[in-house]
């Protein structure tokens, strides 16, 4: 374990690239594979095809079929093999083509990856990364749009991550590869190519378990992660124009989640709006809400509020209604500010 794993490190070069989120993910894997021979990458169509979203484009060409390879069409094989490789000392990155298809690999994730360190008393560990595109907004219906992060957040032993910016995507994925624990790395596919930002070419990591404060504010805290973040920022900017000061916290990591940053923010603003696109019932934000009311009951100026997906399967033609867009967030914010 190096200091790199622990801290958001200084960047070794000033060179930056303008990248979107999926390009940043590609660069993260490229850099980690250059740095560490133990890193191997596999999944369905990740080789010559470069992945159905092109996250792995060009990697087989650079690293060869030995390190970047296509597997049989079997998520149980992919996750299971990643566990066995990690136990034997490799650092596998396994791509599951859509988070909706993690089901066949679920037992491997919860019974093997999540528990092998614990049940063996630390004799065996599974330092692997499962990367998978998740969330809606791509008109994919319910088998290409779901947000299953709560299933995995509910399983001790897994770390669960979801970036919302290219910079974070690169830094978090590099930290995930270096983590000695299994990491489920959800990629919000609807913002894969939504925007570009400057991403350092050099080596840096974003520490797992640390939230980012995207906007500082005094009147209301919006907490979110992943694909909802661009809309959350729009809401903050719109409210700012009306004289309302909104703090926006991007969790980035769901497990472990950054209680301290969230609680500090809500202690200051007294109002919390929790935003996600996963179905409302047993949504991870329920845990965040619970913690806020337990720790900050006296500081709250309004009930903790959630904008989330609905308790229906993810719909096809109705997905714009399903997703929590800026208007729904604005209405929820207005209600909170009216208390």
């Amino acid at each position, binding site marked *: 374990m190096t200091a790199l794993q622990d801290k958001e490190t200084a960047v070794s070069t000033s060179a930056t690239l303008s990248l979107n989120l999926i390009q940043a993910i590609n660069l993260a894997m490229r850099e980690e594979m250059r740095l560490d021979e133990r890193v191997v990458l596999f999944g369905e169509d990740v080789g010559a095809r470069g992945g159905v979203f092109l996250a792995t484009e060009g990697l087989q060409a650079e690293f060869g079929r030995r390190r970047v390879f296509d597997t049989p069409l079997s998520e149980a*094989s992919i996750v*299971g*093999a990643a566990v066995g490789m990690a*136990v034997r000392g490799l650092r596998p990155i396994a791509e599951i083509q859509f988070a909706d298809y993690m089901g066949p690999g679920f037992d491997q994730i919860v019974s093997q990856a999540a528990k092998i360190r*614990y049940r*063996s008393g630390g*004799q*065996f560990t599974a330092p692997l990364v499962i990367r998978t595109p998740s969330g809606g907004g791509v008109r994919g219906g319910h088998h290409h749009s779901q947000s299953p992060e709560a299933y995995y957040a509910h399983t001790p032993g897994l770390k669960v991550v979801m970036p919302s910016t290219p910079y974070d995507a690169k830094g978090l994925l590099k930290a995930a590869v270096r983590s000695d624990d299994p990491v489920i790395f959800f990629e919000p596919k609807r913002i894969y190519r939504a925007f570009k930002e400057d991403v350092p070419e050099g080596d840096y990591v974003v520490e797992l378990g640390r939230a980012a404060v995207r906007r500082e504010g005094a009147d209301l805290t919006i907490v979110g992660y992943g694909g909802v973040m661009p809309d959350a920022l729009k809401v903050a900017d719109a409210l700012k124009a009306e004289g309302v000061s909104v703090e926006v916290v991007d969790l980035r990591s769901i497990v472990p989640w950054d209680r301290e940053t969230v609680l500090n923010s809500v202690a200051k603003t007294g109002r919390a709006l929790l935003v996600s696109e996963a179905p409302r019932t047993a949504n991870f934000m329920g845990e965040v809400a619970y913690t806020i009311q337990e720790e900050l009951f006296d500081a709250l100026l309004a009930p903790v509020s959630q904008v989330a997906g609905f308790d229906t399967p993810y719909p096809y033609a109705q997905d714009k209604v399903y997703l929590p867009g800026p208007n729904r967030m604005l209405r929820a914010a207005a209600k909170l500010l009216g208390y």
Partner: protein
Amino acid sequence: MHKPFTDKPIQRIGEDGRKIGRWTLDLTEDQLRTMHRDMVRARVFDEKLVTILRQGKTSFYAQSSGMEGTQVGLAHAVRPGHDWIWPYYRDQGLAIGLGVSVRDLLAQCLGTSEDLCRARQMPHHFGVRNYNFVSISSSIANQVAPATGTAMAQQYLGTDEITVCTFGDGATSEGDWHAGLNMAGVAKAPIMFVCENNQWAISVDFKGQTASTNIAVKAHAYGMPGYYVDGNDVLAVHSVVSEVAERMRAGEGPALVECLTYRIGSHSNADADAEKQYRSREEVELWRSRDPITRFERFLAAEGLSVDAAAIRAAAQREVEDAITATEATGTPGWDVMFEDVYEDVPAHIALQREYVRAEQEA
């Protein structure tokens, strides 16, 4: 060279202990004696564990009595601590045959302070790093795809290790079993899948699991050889496994070895009585008469090798009794062990929960 896909199980010695066919014994007298002793130690371990279970010292035990030919034959044909094993939950004979100490096994069963797994896992789910004996998951066939991954890593790293993955007959019905074998076939990974076919998955018999004539034939579908072996013939198991392992080290890819044996005891203590409802006493008695230890002792006698079975048995009993006393003396781990090894470090939310319990415990 043994042939795959035989109609009848491959045998080296008959029930009478006499050689079947023409073959030359390639084991030393010392190796034969060790093999015999490990089979007896495994049997005695079973008997003792059932006793301490009745005494309430442990909460779960799955006997492997009757399967010692398979487990010890396999253990003696691989390189302990070099090759990797992804076992299933009835592999105490395999662990003993590899050289894992009875005390380490008992520490796990009793959840004492010296348990290598830190007393967090259900009894009888061993994991021993020094022997590359990977921690056991109760979830059936859950170890198969990971075992393939370990073999793929061995291939990637260019080692001469192989991986052995064991499972019962019931496991072959699981999707993960197919997933693991299919991927191993594609990757040509150095893995030996060993089915310890004891003919019963709790209360469901072999015909209730599969319409295949046996398990070995399934290997056809994955592009690997399938060997059908008499699992109560320790020398047949040892011979087939040794040969297949050598070919695997030479890069010939995976294989499936089915060892046909029988579970003399109940599935676990949980069905010790219920067992009588699903299979006949006649069937159990028939297989009891095919005891792999007795058969091997007949062979040793026929070869002119005398073993003092009673003395070996008595020594094995003392070994287990002494190990129980010694490991019990180490006590049990404290409550706070519960909060460690979930992750590499203890994250803040778990640390808070630990403090909550600490206050409760110290109140």
